[in-house]
């Protein structure tokens, strides 16, 4: 993950050369795609258990948003969290090893797919209760304001969470206290099996902050360039003025979780998005059209990503399970 993080690690996302930025994005999105495909495979092999929610189709959001972040900013999301972690620059090995429940996992095997954290990378989870992360993320923003550190909380939620009451409790406090929070609604159009139309009286979700005076914007979440541009503006707003909402129109290709047969939508609907709106294909075409990369250099990225993911999978497959004594550790911190 060395090159892909260069531009943003320097906090220079806005000024790095355009082709570096886009190549970074391409590589990061591809990493998530390949990682998730491999996770799905390991799940099928019984190596990953429980719930496993894949991010395939939504890669442009985590990656484009991350390009607007600077060190110190925080990220928090719900349980579809692998993509955000990889975009934040967390080692795929420790993420995959968490999925397989091994002691080398980032949560030492105690969290699993839905509960991963990296204080070092500003990633605050990884939360399993729909909507709870929105209050928590608002608290990250509160902390930034309390400490006057200029950091921004990137608080993600889905189109399902947006109907939870505590989201609005949080919106109210965020605007009341002008907290630096960018709320990112990843509208993949289905809350598990219930479409937005069937669950929401107002389907334009970017409007959901209006009665709190929080501005909102709808963004093509399948276009990483659009996401990145919206993110840069939103982050600036959050740092200087207060909370803002970005509604990312996106689509998940897989079921809600690995165990979801996705009978609530047609195969044609999924194929339509995959073939016409895929975020990675879209960026690839752009890179080639603008002459920023040729077939060979993209192939090189492909190969490297595949190698990294294969190594992560091998690591996760062979790393030992936690010692039984670990059952009782990490409940309390010694006072």
């Amino acid at each position: 993950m060395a090159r892909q993080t260069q531009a943003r690690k320097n906090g220079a996302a806005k000024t790095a050369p355009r082709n570096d930025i886009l190549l970074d994005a391409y590589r990061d999105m591809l990493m998530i795609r390949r990682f998730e495909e491999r996770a799905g495979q390991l799940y099928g092999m019984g190596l990953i258990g429980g719930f496993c929610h894949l991010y395939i189709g939504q890669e442009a959001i985590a990656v484009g948003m991350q390009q607007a972040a600077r060190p110190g900013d925080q990220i928090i999301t719900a349980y579809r969290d692998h993509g955000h972690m990889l975009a934040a620059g967390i080692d795929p090995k420790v993420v995959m090893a968490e999925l397989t429940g091994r002691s080398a996992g980032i949560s030492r095997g105690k969290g699993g797919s839905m509960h991963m954290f990296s204080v070092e990378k500003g990633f605050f989870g990884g939360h399993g209760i729909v909507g709870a992360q929105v209050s928590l993320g608002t608290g990250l923003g509160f902390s930034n304001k309390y400490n006057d550190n200029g950091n921004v909380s990137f608080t993600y939620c889905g189109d399902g969470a947006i109907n939870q009451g505590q989201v609005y409790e949080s919106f109210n406090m965020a605007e009341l206290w002008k907290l630096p929070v960018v709320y990112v609604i990843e509208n993949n159009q289905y809350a598990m099996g219930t479409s937005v139309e069937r669950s929401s009286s107002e389907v334009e979700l970017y409007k959901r902050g209006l009665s709190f005076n929080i501005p909102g914007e709808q963004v093509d979440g399948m276009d990483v360039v659009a996401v990145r541009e919206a993110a840069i503006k939103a982050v600036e707003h959050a740092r200087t003025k207060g909370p803002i909402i970005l509604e990312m129109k996106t689509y998940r290709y897989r079921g809600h979780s690995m165990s979801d047969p996705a009978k609530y939508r047609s195969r044609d609907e999924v194929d339509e998005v995959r073939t016409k709106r895929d975020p990675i294909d879209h960026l690839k075409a752009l890179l080639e059209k603008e002459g920023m990369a040729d077939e060979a250099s993209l192939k090189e990225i492909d190969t490297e990503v595949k190698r990294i993911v294969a190594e992560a999978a091998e690591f996760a497959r062979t790393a030992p399970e936690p010692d039984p004594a670990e059952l009782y550790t990490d409940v309390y911190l010694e006072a």
Partner: protein
Amino acid sequence: MTDILMPALSPTMEEGTLAKWNIKAGDTVSSGQIIAEIETDKATMEVEAVDEGVVDAILVPEGSEGVKVNTPIARLKGEGGASSPPPAAAPAAEPAPAAAKAPEAAAPPPAARVANDPEVPAGTTFKRQTVRDALRDAMAEEMRRDPKVFLMGEEVAQYQGAYKVSRDLLQEFGEKRVIDTPITEHGFAGLAAGAAFTGLRPIVEFMTFNFAMQAMDQIINSAAKTRYMSGGQMQCPIVFRGPNGAAARVGAQHSQDYSAWYGSVPGLKVVAPYDAADAKGLLKAAIRDPNPVVFLEHEMIYGTEFDVPEVDDWVLPIGKAKVRREGRDLTITAHSRAVGMALAAAEILAGEGIEAEVVDLRTLRPLDTETIIASVQKTSRLVTVEEGWGPYGVGAEVCAQVALNAFDYLDAPPMRVHCEDVPMPYAANLEALAIPSVDKIVKAAKTVCNR
């Protein structure tokens, strides 16, 4: 003639100070007119006239302290026959209610031998202080000590606390650190937990723990579990505090003891002190603790005064019970307000030749099983007292620990005194029947002693 009576201005008010009269003899009073100001330990309130008429006499002069509720404070010459009926005592249904209100407050605190606490240096002076003020001092001291500590909750700042526990904190620490929230328990509990993830140390006041049910998901799923779920990477140093248990005459939704609920959750520490010294020392410890702490207070003892040692930094260990009274015949365990009842019961029992040992649990998680077991090994008999419901309760847990660790020492089956298995009723007599009482504890104690 119509008497104007000293009004009760809150569910728990028993007396107050008649701070100011706005009327004098000979004045004509109309309905709704503000006639007086009354101070309770929580607030200064204005009193409006209900009846109309000419003031015949002021019966209680302004500045009078400790005026009991329902004392006639002024007399009106009635006009147009508008007069209040005299305050009839509610006809008591059988069985007659036991004194509903804090019988323990009347009993002098029996001399207690202090176990487990840090040594109070010889020559230390003590000051009389209410539990309310002890809690306030604990927060103020910790806020002075650590700029990361802040207080948030409903009415904690400008209003000075719904129960005045946060009085004067806004004035000292400003609105950055004493924060009025909207009525948004779920949201601000989550917000505070998120802030704690970053290393801030929030104190979240719930106006009562009844309202914390709205926030329970954040307390348990976010605050309690995140450290474990992250393999030890994350922390959540936060205190959730506020009054818990039954107040007085506020009905089922405002009268519940959550001790057992929080006490069952790994990742939380749960503290429920009785007296002012413990309230102060344990709240300071809770604020310093790197783990989430649920700190259960009790509205009915906020105004009760106790001795608090005047030492620089009074911090008590979480996880240690306290033997408040030694005895050889039976052990009574209790926490929070019920400790007062247990002590009063022990006094009565002593008069009948039964020496009860009263163990104040103080911390419910981790439970100080060692002190409980040592006591039962000595006395061989056990009564548990709690304001929560019996099933799956604190008493049930204490009994299980005793059965497991001191089975052979028991001379009688333990008994549990707890809230009756009903939602809290409103009627005074029914409420008194529902909650634990000194009488119930005495009866249970005699039963386990075969007396």
